[in-house]
């Protein structure tokens, strides 16, 4: 049977593909994000395996001298690491009891696994796989190692995208230490965020805790989000502080996080 070939000129092909790219670019982001969620959902297993290998290798690299040890020591190390991973999993379960400790009474805490993590580049975000999908919504706060790491920016249950507080698009109201003044913290991309518009008359020190402000419907209590890593007078306006905030947990190495749902609907 003769095959009917559809001949398309290169110029036409390029035009059509460029048009498709432009449609993707200008289509609403909540629609186009579904491609990313579909990718994360389809390849969740290989992505998780690759991520675990990557994390293992990085922790292995950070321990000089281990290459000179015998094979049995490698096996012990792997066993210890596996146990560590297991205890991390248990931690997530334990987090469900946090509501009594941190003023999260009535809150629903959803454990979630980290599928992919983009940190340090143009955008800082995680794609997570939630073990329960009921009640997930945009704007909900996410806990990692008992500290706030960001907010949900998009949901395609059971997956969700977490915009980390270090992302340039992230703006979260915070207060520093014991100061009773709220200021907006904006991500600066390099695993850090900036707090501006705070007068130098206030005493701020490196190491001071930075806490999220309460946000009705999303967070009924203040929780730690980072610490002051650098504090210097602003170059353009020396009467204001230029404060750099770092996360209090190693976000890149998080395997699991917890989504806070303050007012769960039964």
């Amino acid at each position: 049977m003769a095959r009917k070939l559809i001949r398309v000129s290169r110029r036409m092909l390029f035009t059509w593909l460029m048009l498709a790219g432009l449609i993707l670019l200008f289509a609403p982001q909540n629609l186009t994000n579904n491609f990313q969620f579909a990718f994360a959902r389809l390849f969740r297993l290989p992505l998780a395996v690759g991520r675990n290998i990557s994390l293992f290798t990085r922790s292995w690299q950070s321990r000089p001298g281990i290459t000179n040890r015998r094979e049995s020591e490698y096996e012990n190390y792997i066993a210890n690491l596996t146990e560590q991973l297991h205890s991390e999993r248990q931690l997530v379960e334990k987090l469900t009891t946090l509501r009594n400790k941190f003023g999260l009474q009535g809150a629903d805490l959803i454990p979630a696994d980290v599928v992919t993590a983009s940190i340090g580049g143009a955008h800082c975000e995680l794609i997570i796989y939630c073990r329960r999908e009921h009640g997930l919504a945009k704007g909900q706060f996410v806990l990692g190692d008992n500290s706030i790491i960001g907010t949900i920016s998009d949901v395609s249950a059971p997956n969700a995208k977490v915009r980390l507080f270090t992302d340039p698009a992230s703006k979260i109201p915070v207060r520093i230490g014991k100061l009773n003044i709220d200021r907006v913290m904006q991500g600066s991309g390099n695993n850090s965020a900036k707090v501006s518009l705070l007068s130098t008359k206030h005493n701020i020190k490196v190491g001071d805790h930075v806490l999220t402000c309460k946000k009705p419907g999303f967070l009924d209590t203040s929780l730690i989000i980072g610490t002051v890593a650098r504090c210097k007078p602003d170059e353009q306006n020396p009467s204001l502080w230029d404060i750099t905030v770092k996360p209090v947990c190693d976000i890149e190495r998080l395997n699991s996080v917890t989504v806070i749902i303050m007012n769960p609907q039964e």
Partner: protein
Amino acid sequence: MRWLRFAVFILIVTVLQVSLLGIVAVTQLNIRPNLLLILLVFFAIYCNTTDAIITSFAIGFAADISIASVMGSHTISFGLLGTALAYLHRVIAIRKMPYQSLAIFVIGSLAGALAHLLALLKGQAAISNIYTVILGTALYSAIVGPVLFLPAAWWMRIKTHRFSRH
């Protein structure tokens, strides 16, 4: 062009890019080679122009679903620059490793900058050190890229030693 092989190859590389490349990341900025960028240059050099156009957009789409925050930015930038490189290759053959490295560096820098500008157009917030990340990624990719052309050529059954301009 063996399109099924190409599809499988791109999927594998995309998963590797997202999950495993953290092992070789350097500096505080977490700079890592961009395998998809390397493949973009590979297919632009070793395929005929029509195939190069299709592969460029396909690789751009793969970059969008895996590493981009704004969908479409990499599809357009990779598609545009991959096509430009394929046409350039009809005039200037890029066969030696140093030239291939240079091509990866230039295309990586331009594609990264263009993707970032398109993301800004879509309303994404600006980031202070983005151009350091773009140049670092392009440089890292340029260093390792030509070496990875050999396994890519083996998988795609493309003869790299053949000299031709399509």
